[in-house]
């Protein structure tokens, strides 16, 4: 029966024949699939946004937000995960971009893919800002004030009504419209970006295969790799579902963490602040959303605002757009492109540093000497470091930190804090059972998840003997199979529990946590299935 349904679809869709890039065995690790993670976050955010669109009223933004949170069944789950979907998309887009920057993926023939990607990041930030403004709380309104102020001080005041319409009068229709229009734009650019990257040029081969520009597999060669169906599909599903799981789990757990210190608020608090005209608003230190904290701090620099913005935003943006045309060597190794690697490192360091600075001292003016004190040391240290490391002949750069593992670790830590807190707040039997369930599921997951999706093993055992690898692999596959069964049982228990969670109120966010766990489980099931069925003891870089 199942077989027949599968075949029916197979015949209709012909997934074997899709023109997408066929992937060599060694590329099934997350570093090569970061774009899929960004796309996964994008689709989640679009879907949750469409649900919110059914309830949002741009003429009463704050009240509509409160209604969604308090009255709409599971409205807060959708709203908070929409916010974190956007957060995830921004973080993953940065990771995706910088990873491709360091491996030189912007080089010939992928210049256009790169430029589209940079534009998409800029539009994503703009879209997120507009979406954040739709909440209409004191933070959103002050962020819009700052944004409008920056625009008009740069002589771009005519853009204020174009972007924000009648925002200060409480009419957010324009912001809502642009928010959606920008998303549509991202979607369109995504299609082009995806087709260029996946159909036209294919993914970048490992440097062991090609360490010089142009880094492409000839089409004749890549047609021999694993077809898109089923292996790519299964691997992609595992990544997308894991992303969705974290997007749901993190904010819906953070809801239960009350009284975060003020400095953690811009990063971790999914709840809206009080409305701007309420007495409570007076006691709130205003800060922009975390992805614009860097901009907020740059505005505090001693030069004129326009100069600050040009230095802090336009120069980096233009640099990223034209870097394919400046970095013209045919070298791909980061240590053979030391200047550009250094610029990339400095950009990341400055971005994080300025954001944190903006978080710790929002709106506090700084002097030039403070600016130099803050920015010179990391620039010098990274420069010395990069120039001292000799470029290896055959590099092994796999030790690059795996973003998904990092995300997983962070989440698991938050899970623990959250669940302990949950017990403290409501020490009922059901909460203990629930928390026990979450905790054990995630301890198990946390231990087992990382080795399967990261590439650490295949990288480190490559030199070991084939037969040794093989028997180890068989044992691991058996463990993985047992894990699949265990996870299925947990999934069924959780799914049953989800029918009992109230639709609104304090406990309703547990629905989001449960749904997130289900997504993580199914993502993990796909990952394990992929591992058991397709993993080979040695996956040489052909």
């Amino acid at each position: 029966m199942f077989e027949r349904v599968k075949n029916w679809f197979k015949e209709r869709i012909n997934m074997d024949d899709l023109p997408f890039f066929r992937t060599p065995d060694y590329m099934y690790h997350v570093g090569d699939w970061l774009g899929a993670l960004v796309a996964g976050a994008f689709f989640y955010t679009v879907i949750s946004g469409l649900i919110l669109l059914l309830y949002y009223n741009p003429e009463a933004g704050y009240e509509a937000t409160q209604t969604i949170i308090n009255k709409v069944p599971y409205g807060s789950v959708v709203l908070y995960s929409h916010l974190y979907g956007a957060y995830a998309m921004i973080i993953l887009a940065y990771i995706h971009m910088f990873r491709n920057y360091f491996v030189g993926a912007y080089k010939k023939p992928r210049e256009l893919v790169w430029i589209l990607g940079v534009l998409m990041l800029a539009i994503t930030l703009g879209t997120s800002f507009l979406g954040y403004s739709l909440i209409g709380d004191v933070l959103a309104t002050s962020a819009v004030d700052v944004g409008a102020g920056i625009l008009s001080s740069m002589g771009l005041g005519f853009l204020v009504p174009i972007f924000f319409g009648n925002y200060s009068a409480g009419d957010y229709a324009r912001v809502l419209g642009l928010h959606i229009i920008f998303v549509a734009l991202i979607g369109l650019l995504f299609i082009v970006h995806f087709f260029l990257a996946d159909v036209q040029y294919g993914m970048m081969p490992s440097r062991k295969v090609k360490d010089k520009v142009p880094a492409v597999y000839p089409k004749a060669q890549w047609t021999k790799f694993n077809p898109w169906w089923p292996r790519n599909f299964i691997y992609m599903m595992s990544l997308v579902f894991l992303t969705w799981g974290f997007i749901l789990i993190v904010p819906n757990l953070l809801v239960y963490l009350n009284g975060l210190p003020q400095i953690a608020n811009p990063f971790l608090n999914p709840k809206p602040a009080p409305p701007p005209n309420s007495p409570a608003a007076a006691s709130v230190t205003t800060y922009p959303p975390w992805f614009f904290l860097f901009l907020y701090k740059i505005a505090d620099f001693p030069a004129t605002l326009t100069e600050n913005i040009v230095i802090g935003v336009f120069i980096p943006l233009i640099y990223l757009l034209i870097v394919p045309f400046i970095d013209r060597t045919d070298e791909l190794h980061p240590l053979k492109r030391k200047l550009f690697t250094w610029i990339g490192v400095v950009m990341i360091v400055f971005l994080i540093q300025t954001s944190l600075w903006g978080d710790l001292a929002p709106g506090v003016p700084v002097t030039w000497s403070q600016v130099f004190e803050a920015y010179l040391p990391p620039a010098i240290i990274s420069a010395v470091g990069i120039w001292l490391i000799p470029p290896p002949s055959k590099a092994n750069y796999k030790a690059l930190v795996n973003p998904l593992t990092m995300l997983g670790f962070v989440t698991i830590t938050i899970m623990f804090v959250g669940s302990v807190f949950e017990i403290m707040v409501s020490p009922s039997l059901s909460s203990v059972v629930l928390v026990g369930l979450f905790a054990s599921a995630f301890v198990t997951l946390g231990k087992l998840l990382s080795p399967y999706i990261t590439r650490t093993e295949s990288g480190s055992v490559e030199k070991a003997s084939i037969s040794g690898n093989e028997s180890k692999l068989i044992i691991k596959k058996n463990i993985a199979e047992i894990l699949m069964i265990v996870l299925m049982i947990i999934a069924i228990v959780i799914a049953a529990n989800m029918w009992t969670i109230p639709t609104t109120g304090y406990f309703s966010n547990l629905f989001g946590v449960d749904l997130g766990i289900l997504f993580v489980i199914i993502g993990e099931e796909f990952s394990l299935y992929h591992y058991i069925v397709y993993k080979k003891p040695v996956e040489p870089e052909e």
Partner: protein
Amino acid sequence: MPLKFRLGKDVKGGLSYQDYIYLKRIVQAFRLHRFDQREFARKGEDYLFNFVNKNVGPVDEKRRKFLQGILVGVSAALVAGIIPGLRVLVPPVEAISGFPKTLIVDSSGNPIKASTLPVNSPIIMLFSYPLKDEINFLLNLGDKDGKPVEIPATTVIVPQTGDKYQFPGGVGPNKSIVAYSAICQHLGCEPPYIHFYPPKYVNTAQISAPEPDALTAEAVLAAQKENLPGIIHCDCHGSTYDPYHGAAVLTGPTVRPLPAVILEWDSSTDYLYATGYVGVGVYPTGSNGVPSKDPSSDLEESQFGVSVGNKSSISESNPFS
């Protein structure tokens, strides 16, 4: 990395990696777990199959099916978990299951004092009850000299159906305070087109006044005939209601009286409360001119608005220029 066989000059490919591993394990098993050839000769294929199953692990195709079954199972669990979440698509509908007891307050939130309510005021005083969109007049009725008049309980007739219902009469220190729906029962005109005409405006001079202050000759005539000091008149099509007798129909085109708010006066505080509704239903059920026996049943099905809650504030406007 398919395995290749060399047969003479031909290179024959074909064995997939999975098959190769499997084959290799079978060969290993043959060596490790004594393969009984006599048994094989006797039982044939079955023996071979069992032997492989036992010593090598399930055949990959079978194992794969099993794993796919787990994937399907977890997907089913995911779907089962999402189903209760689909309630997110059901909008929360604000409906009230009964009439709230609502204190009538002025625009700054202070309760209206019944004894200070102006008599025969030309000002339109409106409050919402029981839903936010349902507006009602608040009237302190008096005679031609501006003295409050006691409004007795009356039986009101609905011309449309001939049905009758009981209007409870006025409240307040002089039993002169009443409240009626401010939505004309003819076609739904609202203030300022429909409003109260105090005695000094009920005369022939008003026939030539501009909208929304005009009275029809018919209305003036009817008022004089019944000796009514004031009337409620709708300027849209000329319906006239008798506020002194439960807002009964005085002139058409309306065929239904205005529904009345049941008021309660707290003599110790002098506050006024709205506690219910009588008359023909303004809500979907019973709107055919049949007075509702249980008006709250209409409310349950009403999706027109949000309950006013326990306070409703008066808004004032003057229709007369």
